């Protein structure tokens, strides 16, 4: 359970997040909004890359901002990036191991099992000992997901995990995302522009527009909401329709 209260971020005169107040519960939560709505800024605040001007984030009854950013991974906060950040120089195994050894408490005993388990979970068919540099875009995205689910994550933030992937890969990605809450036991927040992916994965969805939360609720209802259509299509398009 993540509880966000009055979260505000200011970059000079710009306010990418404006008093955002929302709760994310168990399972997979969608977070959508037009480009520049503040979705990635929100993830960056949770990761600790961006310091908020105001507001609080409570994760499973703990104050997130009391943890230094590199401790948050150890606590169980994981994420992927909009442009994938699999480490090319390392193998798939080493990529996942890198996160595991820096973010898990009891590493040694179950290390191999955990790392190979995470690779298997995302369904990577390439050898775990292949260099990431030799992989294609879809496989690199899977490496990132494997990094996010290895060990004992509690919250997994997915920032457009299917961006740039062809439809069948997106569908496969959707199936993997759907498995995360049940099999890994982590709360998922999914940011994506692909509405079919969001509706397939998320029972609940929140919508941001210009840093403000404009809708929050069951995904089907949210997608039918007039304010949401307005935000996505713009006033003129709506008038034309």
């Amino acid at each position, binding site marked *: 359970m993540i509880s966000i209260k009055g979260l505000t971020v200011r970059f000079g005169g710009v306010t990418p997040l404006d008093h955002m107040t929302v709760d994310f519960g168990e399972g997979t939560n969608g977070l959508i909004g037009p480009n520049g709505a503040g979705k990635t800024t929100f993830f960056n605040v949770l990761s600790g890359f961006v310091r908020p001007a105001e507001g609080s984030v409570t994760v499973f009854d703990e104050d997130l901002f009391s943890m230094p950013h590199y401790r948050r991974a150890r606590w169980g906060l*994981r994420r992927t990036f909009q442009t994938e950040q699999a480490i090319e*120089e390392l193998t798939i195994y080493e990529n996942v191991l890198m996160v595991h050894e820096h973010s898990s408490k009891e590493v040694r005993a179950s290390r191999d099992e955990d790392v190979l388990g995470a690779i298997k979970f995302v369904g990577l068919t390439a050898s775990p000992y292949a260099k990431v540099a030799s992989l294609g875009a879809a496989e690199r995205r899977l490496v990132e997901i494997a990094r996010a689910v290895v060990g004992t994550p509690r919250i997994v933030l997915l920032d457009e995990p299917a961006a740039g992937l062809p439809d069948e890969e997106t569908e496969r990605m959707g199936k993997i995302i759907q498995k995360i809450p049940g099999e890994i036991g982590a709360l998922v927040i999914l940011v994506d522009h692909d509405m079919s992916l969001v509706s397939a994965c998320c029972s609940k969805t929140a919508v941001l527009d210009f840093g403000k939360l404009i809708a929050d609720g069951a995904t089907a209802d949210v997608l039918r909401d007039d304010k949401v259509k307005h935000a996505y299509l713009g006033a003129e398009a709506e008038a034309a329709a």
Partner: protein
Amino acid sequence: MSATAETTAPEAPTTAKGGGGGRSWVPKLTAGERVRALIILGLLAIVLFLLPAILSGYWINVSTDTAIYSVVALGLGVLMGRTGLVSLGQIAVLALAGWVAARLCFATSLPFPVILLLSGLITMVIGTLIGLPALRLQGLYLALITLMLAGAIGVALRTTNFPNGGAGFLGHTESDRGNGTIRRPALAHADTAFFRYTVIVVAIMFLIALLHVRAKPGRAWAAIRQSEPAALAGGVNITLYKLWAFALASFLTGVAGGLLAARSGQLFTLQFPTQDSILLLAAVLMGGIYSFWGAIVAGALMRLLPALLDNWGLPADLLTILFGVGVLQVLLTAPQGIVYQFPRDMARLGRLIGGLFTRARGAPARERAG
């Protein structure tokens, strides 16, 4: 799909053994790595026994210097190649290490290996302090800061000079040629013996660096170099691992400084011009910044090439021009350096020559594409 699954299966148990027993520091070697280790041991044996037999005293000393500078290049490789931290002050760190080792030699009667270790550790502390700005700065700004620090160290050393057996903390005397030379290990007084000693110490330094790169710090460094956000999101303490990289690089350079002090007997500020730090960067780029072999090539470019130019009666300034052309060539055609370029070009040449023979059978279109 099942075919790939089968090929991965035999590999998995090797790593399972390496990681399962709690000895994650030293990964278990695969068959290919064992072959490579044997080849390296063979090369080491050739260097240790064959080179001293065929080289004259002058070239033995040049080889010793080459080995020492390859460790300095290795330190820069750890910083820049592995972690992505620019440093233009490595030669100044080497000079500092030489000062520390000379100071220790004249002030104490400690055995030589202890002096090497101490100069490594003391330089490590100083080098880590120099690395502190790296936590805030990147790229060009970090390069500038390290270059300025190198300049400052150079100025300080020109005023204090290197210890040569004089009195006081600075230990420098202007009396004719000083009061003595920096001692060598008891085992290795002669140039040839000291060459062997140096090669073994250098091999140990490369092994230390290899163990780091293959283990937890190496993975953290690779993540930091490619993407600090990804490293942070993975729980890597970036501050700690950046300082660790500076500490390791400085330790390596510190040991190299100790060896250099003993090799020269006396140290002079002329041996450590500030621009050598920039030449070192050029040499490491040419050799191959991501490779340990590249560090050895860089050592040869720094010390063997000038000796060769000198031997052929060519002016030493030619070196700067050669380095300039070399860096340009490497950056344009092979950013990974000579150690990758050479085998690649040799393979290409082999295919070309092979193509001449198979042309009759209509194969030439293929090697063009490759």
